[in-house]
C-alpha cells in the first residue's frame, strides 16, 4: 500500500539521492546528498537501498505530517527530533503514526540533516537521479502543503503506551565539530603553486557565508600560482581546491560546474567531503595531507561500517516483518538446535 506525507514547514529542504553520476559526461554536475555517509546511513536505517530518494534539510527547522503510518530515520548534524510531540532519537529507525507531525528543530554544530522514509518516495528522475539541478531547473520544489507519495506504509512498531523507542541499534555516529580537519591529496597541478602550496597545511581557514552546494569559500592565507600561462578548460573533480581570486580559497562540492580553467591545488578525500558538507559559515577548517591509498582505505572503512549496519537492519526488520528481509521463521536453525 502506498503512503504519503505532507510538508508543513519546508525550511530549506529538497528530495535528493546520492547524485547524478551519469551527469558529468553530459556537462551536468553530479549533485546529490552533500553528506553521503549520513544520507546512506539514513536510507539503511529506514530499510531502503542506499540510493533511494530521501529528504535533505539544510540549516533550517522542518516539519511534516504523516498521512499514513510510516517508518523514518533521521541522520546528519545534531538536532532536536520530535514525532507526535515525543522526543525521538536520531540515527535510529522511528515509527510515525498516521496524523503525527515529525518536527526537526535546532540543527547545530553541522549544517545538514537527512530524513529517509521506509519505502522511499515516488519522484521524477533525470539521467537516473532525482537530485535537484538548479541550472537545468530540475527537481521538486518543496513548499508548504506539498504531498510526497511513499511507496509503502509501515505499521507502528513503537511501544504504543509509553512511546518508548523500540530500536536501540547503537550505530557509531560520526563526530560533528566546528573545526573539522579535512584530508586532502595533492592536486594534479600542485607543482604550479611552488613553495606556497605548503600554506594550505599551516593555515586555519574560516568558512565564508558565500558557501553553498557548488563550493565552499574559505578565507585565510592563500597559496599562489607561480605561472601566468592560460589553462585549457578541464574536467575538475568534486573536492578540487582552487585559488580563483586573491580573497578566498574555493573548495568545489557536488554542485560544481564540471569543467573549469583553474589549476587544481589539492583534492578533498571522499570521506572528508562529508565533513565539509557539515561546515557552517564561521567554522574553521584545517587541511591535512594524505595519500590516495590512505584516503581509499578510510573511505572503505566507512563503507564497511555501513554494510554492518545494513546487516543488522536486515536481521531486525526481517524479524519484525518489515520490508523484504527474512522472517524469523525463515532463518536457518542455530547449530545444535
Amino acid at each position, binding site marked *: 500500500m502506498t503512503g504519503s506525507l505532507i510538508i508543513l514547514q519546508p525550511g530549506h529542504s529538497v528530495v535528493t539521492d546520492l547524485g547524478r*553520476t*551519469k551527469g*558529468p*559526461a*553530459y*556537462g*551536468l*554536475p*553530479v549533485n546529490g546528498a552533500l553528506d553521503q555517509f549520513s544520507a546512506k546511513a539514513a536510507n539503511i536505517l529506514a530499510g531502503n537501498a542506499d540510493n533511494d530518494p530521501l529528504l535533505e534539510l539544510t540549516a533550517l527547522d522542518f516539519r511534516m505530517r504523516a498521512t499514513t503510518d510510516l517508518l523514518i530515520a533521521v541522520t546528519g548534524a545534531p538536532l532536536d527530533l520530535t514525532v507526535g510531540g515525543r522526543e525521538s532519537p536520531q540515527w535510529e529507525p522511528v515509527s510515525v503514526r498516521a496524523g503525527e507531525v515529525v518536527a526537526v528543530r535546532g540543527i547545530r554544530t553541522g549544517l545538514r540533516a537527512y530524513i529517509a522514509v521506509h519505502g522511499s518516495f515516488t519522484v521524477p528522475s*533525470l*539521467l537516473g537521479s532525482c537530485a535537484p*539541478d538548479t*541550472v*537545468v*531547473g*530540475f527537481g521538486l520544489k518543496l513548499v508548504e502543503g506539498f504531498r510526497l507519495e511513499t511507496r509503502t506504509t509501515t505499521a507502528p512498531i513503537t511501544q504504543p503506551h509509553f512511546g518508548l523507542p523500540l530500536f536501540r541499534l547503537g550505530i557509531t555516529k560520526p563526530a560533528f565539530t566546528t573545526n573539522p580537519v579535512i584530508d586532502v*591529496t*595533492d*592536486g*594534479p597541478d600542485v*607543482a604550479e603553486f611552488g613553495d606556497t602550496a605548503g600554506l594550505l597545511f599551516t593555515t586555519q581557514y574560516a568558512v565564508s557565508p558565500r558557501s553553498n552546494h557548488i563550493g565552499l569559500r574559505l578565507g585565510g592565507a592563500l597559496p599562489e600560482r607561480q605561472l601566468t600561462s*592560460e589553462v*585549457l*578548460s*578541464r*574536467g*575538475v*573533480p*568534486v*573536492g*578540487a581546491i582552487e585559488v580563483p581570486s586573491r580573497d578566498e580559497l574555493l573548495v568545489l562540492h557536488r554542485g560544481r*560546474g*564540471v*569543467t*573549469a580553467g583553474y589549476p*587544481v591545488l589539492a*583534492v*578533498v*578525500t*571522499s570521506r572528508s567531503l562529508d565533513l565539509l558538507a557539515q561546515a557552517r559559515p564561521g567554522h574553521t577548517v584545517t587541511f591535512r595531507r594524505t*595519500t*590516495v591509498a590512505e*584516503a*581509499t582505505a578510510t*573511505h*572503505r572503512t566507512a*563503507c564497511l561500517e555501513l554494510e554492518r549496519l545494513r546487516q543488522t537492519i536486515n536481521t531486525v526488520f526481517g524479524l519484525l516483518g518489515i520490508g523484504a528481509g527474512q522472517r524469523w521463521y525463515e532463518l536457518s536453525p542455530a547449530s545444535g538446535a
Partner: protein
Amino acid sequence: MAATTTTTSQTTLDIYESGDAALRVVARSGDAETNWATVHSLAGWLAATGVEGIHGAVPTYDSVLVEFDPYLTSARQVRAFVLLGMRQLDFVGTTLREPRRFEVPVVYGGDYGPDLDRVAEHQGLDVEDVIARHTAKTYVIRCLGAPAGSPMMDGPDFPVPVPRLKDPRLSVPAGAVSVAGRQAVIAPAVAPGGWCVIGQTPLTVLDAAREPLVPYVPGDELRFYRIPAEDFGNFAGQFLEARP
C-alpha cells in the same frame, strides 16, 4: 604521486591522481587535434565498456577526467584500465562518429547581444565585420562545458583574444551566443557568465524532457546564421536539431 607517463605509438599520456575518486588523463602529442581526438576516443571507449565502478568520463581539449566509485574500484585499477583502453585504441585507431551538422539562427547586437559593440571596438573591426567573421566559420563542438552541457567551440577568426567581462553578469539568458578568449559558445540555460554576449538564438538548446538534454555531442559541427530581430519570435518553441 605525480603523473605517470605512458607512450603508445599514437601519443604520450600523463595520468594524474585527482583525489580518491578521479584521475586526470592528459594527451601530450604536441598536436592539439590529435590530443583532442585521443581524449574523446578514450572517453567513448570507457563509456562503451561500461566497467563496474567507473561513473563516466569528462573529455575536454587535451584531457579527460575519469570519475569512479572508490569503494567498487580504485585509482590504481582505473589507471590500468585507461592504459588498456589506450592500447585498444592504438590498435583500432581513434574513431569518432560521423559529425552531425547544426545551423543556429542568431539575432546579433542590441538587447540580444549587448557586448557586440565592445567586442568590435576591442578587435578594431566594425560590427558588420565581427558578425561576418562569426557566421563565416564551421565550428567543431570540442566538448560539453558548464553550465548544462554548453557546446564549447574554437572561436571565430578574430585578430586578438576576447577579454572576459571585468564584472561577470549574474544572469545570462538561455540562447545567449558568446565569445571569450579564442572560444565561442551558446548558453543552453540561464546562468551567471563572464563571456561577451554578441547575440542570441531563439532556438531552445536544452530540453529537460529529453535525455541527454542537449542534441549535440563533441565532434558535431555548427554554423551560425544571422536573422533580423523581428524574426526572433517566429522560432518560439523550436528546438535546436541536427540538419537532416
